[in-house]
């Protein structure tokens, strides 16, 4: 199990707008995510979920508006764990080489030991010396999740993290997210449809054409976020 996250951080989106050509991915979005919250984002394809997560990760600069992190003023870059649509790992390296490479970049203490532990967690210990290009989509996704958890991030951004995972791996992911949520890590994840992972969320948001159209805490309305058509 990855080490406990650092001090949790919150994210504040203020009047954020992002356009790709004439298409608005995010439109005048103002949203506050408190430190320690676990937020599920729902929405149809093209509603802006991925852009929202990439803006939060500082991978995409918004056209207008600002993104601020609370509780992380002492660090220039907050520790962010990001799992995107792409695996963000190298096919021409082995699973162990990939994780060791990123662990060293992130300055993880005792990277060898930490990586061995993570490989055991994602049940890839026996395939650690295999090149990633020989892995199935689900196995690559497990390496991608392990990479995101390497530096014990304070903010986790998961873009449909269950993609390609079998039932067993999905259950493992849900368990990891539960532990991270309970230890105070801030989690923002985009999901399609209601699932075990979605039920971990303490808050659910629905996006439509780049704007928040529903925002609810646990309760009667929670399920309606995911039961909307296309979500």
């Amino acid at each position, binding site marked *: 199990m990855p080490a406990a996250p650092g001090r949790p951080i919150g994210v504040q989106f203020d009047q954020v707008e992002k356009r790709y050509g004439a298409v608005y991915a995010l439109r005048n979005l103002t949203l506050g995510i408190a430190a320690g919250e676990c937020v599920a984002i729902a929405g149809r394809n093209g509603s802006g979920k991925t852009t929202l997560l990439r803006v939060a990760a*500082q991978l995409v*600069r918004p056209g207008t508006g600002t993104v601020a992190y609370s509780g992380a003023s002492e660090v*220039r870059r907050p520790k962010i764990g990001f799992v*995107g649509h*792409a695996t*963000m*790992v190298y096919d021409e*390296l082995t699973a162990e*080489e990939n994780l060791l490479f990123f662990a060293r*970049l992130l300055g993880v203490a005792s990277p060898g030991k930490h990586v061995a532990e993570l490989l055991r967690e994602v049940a890839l210990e026996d395939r650690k010396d295999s090149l990633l290009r020989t892995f199935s989509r689900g196995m690559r996704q497990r390496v991608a999740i392990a990479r995101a958890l390497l530096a014990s991030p304070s903010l986790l951004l998961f873009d449909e993290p269950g993609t390609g995972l079998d039932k067993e791996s999905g259950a493992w992911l849900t368990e990891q997210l539960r532990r991270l949520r309970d230890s105070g890590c801030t989690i923002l994840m985009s999901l399609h449809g209601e699932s075990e992972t979605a039920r971990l969320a303490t808050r659910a948001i629905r996006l439509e054409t780049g704007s928040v159209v529903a925002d609810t805490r646990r309760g009667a309305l929670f399920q309606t976020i995911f039961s909307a058509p296309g979500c």
Partner: protein
Amino acid sequence: MALLSNAAVLLGKEVRTEFRSRELLSTTMVFVLIVVVVFSFTFDPTSTESRRFGPGLLWMAFLFAASLMLQPCFLREQVNDTLGALRLAVEDPFAVFLAKIAANTVFLLFTELVMLPVFAALFNVSFGSQLPGVLLTFLLGSLGISIVGTALAAISAQARMRELLLPLLLLPLLTPILVVSTEVTIRLMQPEPYLEWKGIGLMAAFDAVFLTVLWLFGEYLLEE
């Protein structure tokens, strides 16, 4: 220190993946070999002619080899969005550039050094007494090509006409260092060879200026 240690880790990855796939080195070496061999048949390789045309042909071959080598350096990072992972992992994005520049310089220099004896044999020239000068010229020239080429590869990787864009941008920007590198190499191939320090200074200045520009503005080149 974090910048250098990150750059060292990234360089290790670049070298490991290249020596595993051997895609860039084999392609560029075959390319340079073909250019050198073809031109050796085109020109009568007497020493006088070789000294006049040789350095120009050599640097032209290195330039085209470099453009083949530079193109994939950022394209490969887009396949699985590993560039995003790198940007999240490194403290200073300049570390990514530093590692890619170092890797491209090493690969280009390696190609040049392997091709140098072939060129010397086919064009009937000898660099023996001036080998340190040749190495210094090749190092500064290759570094200049790599600095500008890596920056432009980062720009072109995000463009639609990426295959065309890199050579189009690369050639005009590299003209100054190619002219100086050729001039310095010509002096090293004279019957009484000497190292033209003024040219070496110009090459070092070119490298320093473009490296500084990249250090200041490189972060914006990696953004989506």
